[in-house]
């Protein structure tokens, strides 16, 4: 093995890749843009959609309750609803979004209130539809308010204080520091995105430096030189690995910058102070460094697998058709890692990608299981070494290099 040759090949591949728009797009531009787009763009878009939905005065319908005119009157007087005339096809009107929600008032509702019995009001919504959900929330608040006022009136009539019905309050207070909250919020999605971007960052260089070279005829030119095959593989592999790591670094830096921007935007808002519900999520910097360290063997694994797979292909397109579906193989364990209730154990610590997804989630939320971390780093490094050895072996096979 000659380090001089490996460095020469790596230097050339780096220069070549920096002049390749496709590689720049997949390793630098997309990873840099995805995180801000996700954190700022998507966050902003969701916030605009929700606030617009909240601003809308929902159209609701009162079903039944003809003998309880006070309910309809109070609903209209509240100014928070547009009460539509009752209709027998109210279910389809909700489905067609012409009415957001409906409240079914039982017969003799108001009389029942006075007598102290407890009739039930049923609220109807279209589950999963944002505006319908908001309308039902408002209706529920309206009826809870009505219930509280009725309770207070009935208790006052009997000369009792309202604390009889509500002897104590329940409050919830947070003790988790903001970075832990941020880690829990982002811990699921961040490893998933980083794993995906790491794979995408390695994909284009791997294809370009193997199948691309075979297709363009430069592979044969290179093989004519006295460089050992192993040196050629290592030089090229280092470039593929660089692509993967640059993609990860760009995504982490842009994620940090996005969170800083969001944090600054929240800083002036008292409700957005750290620890408050709805405050900007922050992440422990040690967690980010931990993720970066754990991603290194994954990047080696992805680079070696993509290198070997692309090497087998005759053309860039063929390599893309092999590497493309592999994204799903990567995504599935990464998604499983995001699911709540899946906890890291020794068996899962040996499952590639899933193990990284789980341990990164823990590290970002400030939990450091050193035994698992070592097992995951070691097993992933071992898988990566096997994949790299396979890539070197494949490069020495005439049937692969001169496949026609």
């Amino acid at each position, binding site marked *: 093995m000659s380090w*001089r*040759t490996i460095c*020469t*090949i790596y230097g*050339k591949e780096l*220069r*070549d890749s920096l*002049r*390749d728009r496709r590689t720049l797009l997949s390793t630098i531009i997309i990873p840099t843009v995805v995180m801000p787009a996700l954190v700022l763009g998507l966050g902003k878009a969701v916030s605009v959609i929700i606030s617009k939905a909240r601003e809308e005065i929902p159209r609701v319908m009162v079903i039944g309750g003809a003998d309880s005119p006070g309910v309809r009157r109070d609903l209209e007087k509240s100014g928070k609803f547009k009460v539509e005339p009752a209709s027998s096809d109210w279910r389809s009107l909700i489905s067609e979004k012409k009415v957001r929600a409906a409240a079914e008032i039982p017969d003799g509702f108001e009389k029942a209130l006075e007598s102290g019995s407890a009739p039930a009001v049923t609220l109807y919504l279209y589950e999963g539809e944002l505006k319908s959900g908001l309308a039902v929330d408002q209706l529920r608040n309206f009826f809870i308010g009505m219930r509280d006022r009725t309770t207070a009136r009935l208790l006052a009539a009997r000369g009792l204080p309202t604390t009889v019905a509500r002897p104590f309050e329940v409050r919830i207070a947070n003790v988790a520091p903001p970075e832990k909250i941020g880690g829990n919020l982002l811990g699921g999605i961040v490893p998933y995105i980083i794993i995906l971007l790491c794979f995408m960052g390695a994909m284009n260089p791997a294809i370009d430096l193997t199948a691309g070279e075979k297709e*363009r*005829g*430069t592979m*044969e*030119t*290179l*093989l*004519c*030189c*006295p*460089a*050992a095959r192993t040196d050629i593989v290592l030089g090229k592999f280092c470039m593929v690995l660089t692509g993967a790591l640059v993609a990860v670094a760009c995504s982490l830096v842009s994620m940090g910058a996005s969170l800083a921007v969001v944090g600054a935007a929240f800083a002036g808002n008292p409700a957005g102070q750290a620890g408050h519900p709805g405050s900007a999520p922050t992440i422990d910097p040690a967690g980010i460094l931990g993720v970066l360290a754990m991603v290194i063997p994954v990047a080696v694994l992805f680079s070696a697998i993509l290198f070997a797979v692309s090497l087998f292909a005759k053309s860039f397109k063929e390599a893309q058709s092999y590497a493309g579906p592999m994204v799903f193989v990567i995504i599935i364990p990464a998604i499983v890692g995001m699911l709540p209730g899946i906890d890291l154990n020794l068996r899962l610590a040996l499952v590639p990608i899933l193990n990284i997804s789980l341990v990164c989630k823990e590290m970002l939320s400030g939990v450091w299981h050193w035994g698992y971390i070592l097992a995951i780093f070691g097993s992933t490094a071992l898988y990566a070494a096997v994949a790299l050895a396979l890539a070197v072996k494949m490069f020495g096979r*005439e049937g692969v290099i*001169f496949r026609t």
Partner: protein
Amino acid sequence: MIEARLLTKVFHDKKRGQIRAVDAVSFRAEPGRIYGLLGANGAGKTTTLRLLATLLKPTSGTAIVAGHEVVGEADKVRANVGFLATSTALYARLTSREMIAYFGRLNGLDEHSLRSRIGSLAEELDMHEFLDRRCDKLSTGMKQKTSIARMLVHDPQVMIFDEPTVGLDVMTTRSIVQFVRECRGRGKTVIYSTHVMSEAEKLCDVIGIIHEGKLRAEGTLAELLARTGGPDLEECFVKVVSPEAQG
């Protein structure tokens, strides 16, 4: 010098079974002479040359190239060989200078020697005008000059040309042919494969006719014509590869 000894290459194909692309080929190419390997498409020329350049390993037999054995000393063989074929392309995103320098470094040249070598090659091949232009912006002739400079950068003893004029215009073809002659003049061992009879007639000192992986005939142009009684190389070639001649 190149000496092929019963060089054989067998490929395994799922549909066609075993294919003997090169079948016990033996020949000798001397320094200062051009050995022409003449054959139709699929005759086994490229496989033979790839075996000599150590891109492929022989199934059996061997070859000695510049004093080194192609299987056991493949790296040393490659260090002494310049290989030019239609399939040996240039890196489109590198400049002509970067391309030559890259292969110079891979052949072990230090930076000082490399600079002076690039300078002398640029002078010799009249490349100064486009030396710093990206290869994908070069004309076909400029690309061929860059490929030749790439092939020459380490000053190899043995030059292997695999149909280097395929698809080139007349002027570029002439310059390649002229360059091959110059290699002979410098005492290099040159092996030149082609299926163009006129090229072989004009250029080669010794011609080996290869057909279906076997070397069917070998000799100077005059010897081949005398042996087959043909008026020119084309007739001679047809007679050598015809089923009757093989039978």
